[in-house]
């Protein structure tokens, strides 16, 4: 497992998708591309990602729908919404649904990198907190329980991590 940030970019604009993917790869991101919502969900189900860049307006499943499913299925995944629409309402609604932030297209790469950075930190923080909690739980379990039951609890916690 590499130490690169694993990033999924979802956009129906192929040219945009190709270029931004390449640029982020050059900046040491591990980038996976999806051109629609269904593909994105499928890919996210197979692999574990740190961050998702998600376009709002897409044929098929739109960004909002994809966001809802992703946030439900992947606890620590942080999503940044990309929108050409520029409408404040839809972006605000997405942050309410769990998106980390939004970015209207076209944007400066620096602001994207900044947001990605912040999002990754938040993800790390959350993961750290959860890990901390888990350790405490394990600590509690360690007293007065059989070795087998401790093992069983650990497995349960591990499954929650997704």
């Amino acid at each position: 497992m590499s130490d690169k940030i694993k990033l999924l970019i979802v956009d129906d604009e192929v040219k945009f998708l190709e270029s931004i993917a390449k640029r982020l790869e050059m900046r040491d991101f591990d980038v996976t591309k999806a051109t629609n919502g269904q593909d994105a969900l499928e890919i996210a189900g197979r692999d574990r990602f740190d961050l998702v860049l998600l376009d709002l307006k897409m044929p098929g499943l739109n960004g909002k729908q994809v966001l809802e499913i992703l946030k439900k299925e992947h606890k620590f995944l942080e999503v940044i919404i990309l929108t050409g629409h520029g409408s404040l309402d839809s972006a605000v609604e997405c942050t309410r649904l769990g998106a980390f932030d939004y970015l209207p297209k076209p944007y400066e790469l620096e602001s994207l990198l900044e947001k990605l950075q912040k999002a990754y930190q938040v993800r790390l923080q959350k993961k750290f907190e959860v890990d901390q909690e888990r350790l405490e739980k394990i600590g509690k379990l360690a007293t007065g329980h059989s070795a087998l039951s401790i093992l069983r609890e650990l497995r349960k916690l591990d499954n929650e991590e997704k």
Partner: protein
Amino acid sequence: MSPEHYRSLRRQTTLRLSLTYLTPIVLLAIYFMFQYDAVVSESERLHLKAMAESQANTLDLFLSERQVNLSNVIDDPTFPTQPTSADLARNLEGLRRISNAFVDIGFFDSSGVQVTYAGPFESLERRDYSSEEWYSTLREHTASFVITDIYLGFRQRPHFTIAVSRVTQQGLIVLRATLDPQKIYQYLSSLEGSGEVVAYIVNLNGTCQLAADVIAKPLDTCSFVPPRTPRQGSIRATVKGSSAIYGYSWLHTVDWSLIVRKPPQHHQSFFSSTNLRVLGIATIMVIVGFIVIVNRSRKRVELQRDSDISRVQLGHAAKLASVGELAAGIAHEINNPLASINEEAGLMKDLMDPAFGTPVEPHELVHYLDSIQESVFRCRDITRKLLGFVRKTDIELKEQDIHKLIDEVVDGLLGHEMVVSNIEVTRDYGEDVPKLVTDGNQLEQVLLNILNNALDAMEDEPGKIAIVTRRTDDKVRINLSDTGKGMNREQLEHIFVPFYTTKEVGKGTGLGLSVSYGIVRDLGGEIEVQSSPGQGSTFTLVLPIHHETPIAEN
């Protein structure tokens, strides 16, 4: 609208108002003039007849008196059987005291020779009159007196005579007096009321007996001879090209007819002074009416033009408003290629940056440059489409394929929006739907407004828009159904009210449908709506196949 349009509108309005308001005046004036003329003619007729009768009676009386004067002389027992010239001269003097019409008198023996004569024409003495008609009449005892027509006789001057006879032991004796027609005519002219008419007398053959110089000379053939029956009357006759009413009355004492008519200069038939007055008043009324009408037409057309101009302006504003509603979608359309350009440009910069390893060769960048150009053209196409839609302002009626129009709006202006919003558009175009004579640009605007609303009604959820076109009789129906949130009763009642909107603050202007309604009505059609909450909405445009240029009243 062109100035020519308003000129022709003004002409039409003027003509229509003129026909409505001026025709009755003209007809009334003409009717009045004819009616007045008829009344005048009738009264003139009666007047002339009465005049002829009264003058004829007077003349009858006059001639009877002269005959009685003469009879008194011959019937006088003291009248000598063989009067001398001195006797007759005395008698003539007595007669002339009674009437200055007497010119001379003569005495005839039974052989018809004038044996004695008194008067200015002494050469007539001893002339034989036995073959004269008047003498034969007396000799054959068919009458006791004779009044002759005017004739020249031996003296070669117009005159007429009254002869009375008496039978004595010596046979038939006759006393004859000659009368001066001029004197009689002067007498007639002196009668009351004769000044306003011209009177003359003709005999049975139409020979003029007595007349004013303006009409004819004695013994001329008269151009108008009245009928024998009825004995009095009035007739309109055309003599020498001028029509006039003649009153006449046949005399009892002699076969003469007295004729009266208005002096020619007083008789101008139709264009009498009263008629001219009526004509003058009518003309003034027509002129004043026409000026008022021209003025009103001008004002009316000006009002029409002002309202057209403001409607065009409002229409343009509303169009901009509907474009404003479209702008969100367009922003998406433009921002996407811009984002691509941005990324590709950034990528090229990265590729040439030594910080990312060996810089690439310029030819390796061509692919990205092409791609950038492509995106630029995509933006250009979008702005062009948008400007093309806003710029068209003139209303022009042309034959339009509405299916092509619908496709232009659905695929052109809203195509990408439909795809990214996951709206499935189904089209069911009726094969028998003909081309419409209508304003394509305005219709596009209506379609855009309705489809924009449909998109908004879906609220970012996937949905369907069904477009169905059908022909019914002389109309075409365009159904636009969406699967959006629909409207309740209260909303339905207000959707065509300007500035009413169901959209969030800042999203809708509330002008789209009210303007669409105005446009469709101007194009001779109507908009029907069916909707209920949760069931979507169906807008139906009903358009006439042929639409004439609307000429608004008021």
